């Protein structure tokens, strides 16, 4: 990767041409505009959330105020995203390892494209797939889990007859964030210095020992950063959840296989917003603000981790 840096060397006494000033000004203006948009997103959400935050608790949907309305949604959002993360991280790392160290070299690139295609599929199509393909196929498994694993609170049941459960939603989300995690892991794994790997192999390591000794330690922060980016996407995912999950308002439960599930913030907005007006809209926007802040924190952390790795690894 040869990156060229910005040319610093300018003519000693450059004439300040009008064209230069205009062009540089508009380029910088575009950059600043992007910052303003980000600030604007936060500002407009706050402005429109305030009426719901200051309204009497009884007027807010649910009748107990905004925190009581958003709380279960926040719980559902985090629960679905965590399920997705737990399922997708090991799988994503395994895919990245397969593409960088196991697949025949000639196949690695086309297979990489195929994995990237998973990221290109619109989320609504994942929702369709989740309802019609995945959920019915998981129903027997849920029935089995209820019969044999109900001592674990996660599988307490009663099992959903439609399969539209929190676990199904988590699996759909996992598939959706898989390409993100595997793409970033793949990038880091491919950057592992050849000398590290050859040194491990020269010591007589098997391929797995080489990966464990040189690839995984080197790529660890990239994997963590990729997982957090995936978490950010899973938290904000809307339509797939709105279609797949069968929800009942205000629920908080760790039971993953029943028909009674908490909704997620994003899915709740998508389901409620088109039919809402007045204070209901403000309440939904307040929940959107909570989602925005949550994803902002996760993304800032993720980017900080990924960028820190980039700072330290460039010189190798």
């Amino acid at each position, binding site marked *: 990767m040869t990156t060229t840096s910005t040319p610093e060397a300018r003519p000693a006494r450059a004439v300040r041409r009008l064209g230069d000033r205009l062009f540089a000004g508009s380029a910088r203006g575009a950059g600043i505009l992007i910052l303003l948009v980000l600030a604007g997103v936060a500002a407009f959400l706050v402005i429109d959330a305030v009426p719901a935050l200051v309204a009497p608790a009884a007027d807010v949907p649910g009748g107990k105020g905004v925190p009581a309305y958003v709380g279960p949604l926040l719980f559902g959002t985090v629960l679905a995203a965590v399920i997705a993360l737990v399922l997708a991280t090991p799988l994503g790392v395994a*895919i990245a390892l397969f593409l960088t160290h196991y697949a025949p*070299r000639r196949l690695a690139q086309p297979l990489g494209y195929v994995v990237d295609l998973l990221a290109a599929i619109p*989320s609504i199509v994942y929702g369709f797939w989740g309802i019609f393909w*995945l959920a019915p196929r998981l129903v027997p498994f849920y029935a089995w889990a209820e019969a044999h694993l109900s001592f674990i609170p996660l599988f307490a049941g009663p099992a959903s007859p439609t399969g539209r459960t929190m676990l199904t939603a988590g699996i759909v989300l996992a598939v959706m964030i898989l390409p993100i995690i595997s793409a970033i892991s793949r990038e880091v794994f491919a950057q592992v210095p050849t000398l590290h790997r050859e040194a491990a192999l020269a010591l007589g390591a098997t391929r797995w020992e080489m990966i464990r000794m040189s690839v995984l330690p080197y790529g660890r922060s990239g994997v963590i950063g990729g997982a957090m980016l995936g978490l950010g996407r899973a938290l904000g995912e809307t*339509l797939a959840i709105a279609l797949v999950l069968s929800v009942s308002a205000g629920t908080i439960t760790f039971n993953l296989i029943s028909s009674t599930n908490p909704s997620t913030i994003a899915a709740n907005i998508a389901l409620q917003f088109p039919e809402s007006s007045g204070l209901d809209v403000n309440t939904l926007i307040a929940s959107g603000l909570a989602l925005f802040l949550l994803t902002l924190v996760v993304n800032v952390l993720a980017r900080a981790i990924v960028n820190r790795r980039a700072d330290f690894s460039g010189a190798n």
Partner: protein
Amino acid sequence: MATRPSTPPPLTGGAGPKGRLPRWARWAVFGGALVVVAGIGLPAGLGLALVVLFTAVLGTLALFVLSRAVEGRRTAKDRLVTCVVVSAFALAMLPLVSLVYEVVSRGIARLDAEFFNSSMVGIVGEGGGAYHAILGTLIITGLTALISVPIGLLAAIYLVEYGTGRLKQAITFLVDVMTGIPSIVAGLFAYALFAIFFGPGVRMGIAGAVALAVLMTPVVVRSAEEVLKLVPNELREAAYALGVPKWRTVVRIVLPTAIAGLATAVTLAVARVIGETAPLLVTVGITNATNLNQFDGRMATLPVFAYYQLTQPGVPPEFAIDRAWTAALVLIILVMTLNLVARLISRFFAPTTGR
């Protein structure tokens, strides 16, 4: 990748190898596992998916035990991990394959002329199409590109050619953060913005385009920046040496050199937003009639059309659900085509950097 050993290197010392399994051993083990699982499972009514799953698990375990006995602990572990990694990849392909199969097989039924040249005005039950939704998607996506491509390219030019110090750092970092904004939040932002001017309950195409632009611009900046960084510095320096002003250097030298990469970046960014549903759901809504005016009221778009056909199918539901699947199929075809075009652009119009 300089080294990619197809077999583990010889082991000496330590636990030490006792021998090596022949190359056909793994195939034999997995074949045996398949025979065993199918022999016991199929009469017991086991599904095909479970047969494959149990075969993978049983074969992996059998190979591990066999290798452990013949080749020693370390090689056995290596083989175990290989099996796990390959199975994980196969498992990840399952959603993609099943999804494409499902969408094609269900969507093909209504992929007819009527779907492309009729709207939903006066349609109850059979017939109808997504003419209005396809046009709406094209208009709104076009507007989105019109907003985000200039801003995104200029911002990328700023970052690569002009930016210094903290402003550059701030923009780079926040653009990265912005790529993670949930799409529904972008939709709420656009709604809140337009509600100020047009009152609450506003629905119009341009609001959807603004929402999508919030999602698309960071993607354009990010990938355009990568592409511009690849333009060799020698080209810029040669232009400066000839006395060419900086802005003309950028416009006449840097951008033409990187044009293929930029086109790829823009195409991929369009592909990313064309399937977005959530922001359009809250800003543009849905309508049955053809509305081509992005400043006047609700418009239909393909993803939202698919969503409502599925969730509010009416009676009888099967015709609307067929239309929903066909809309999903058309969406996938659009996205895949854009991805393919992007790859072709970058392959056939690769920058001529000399040497």
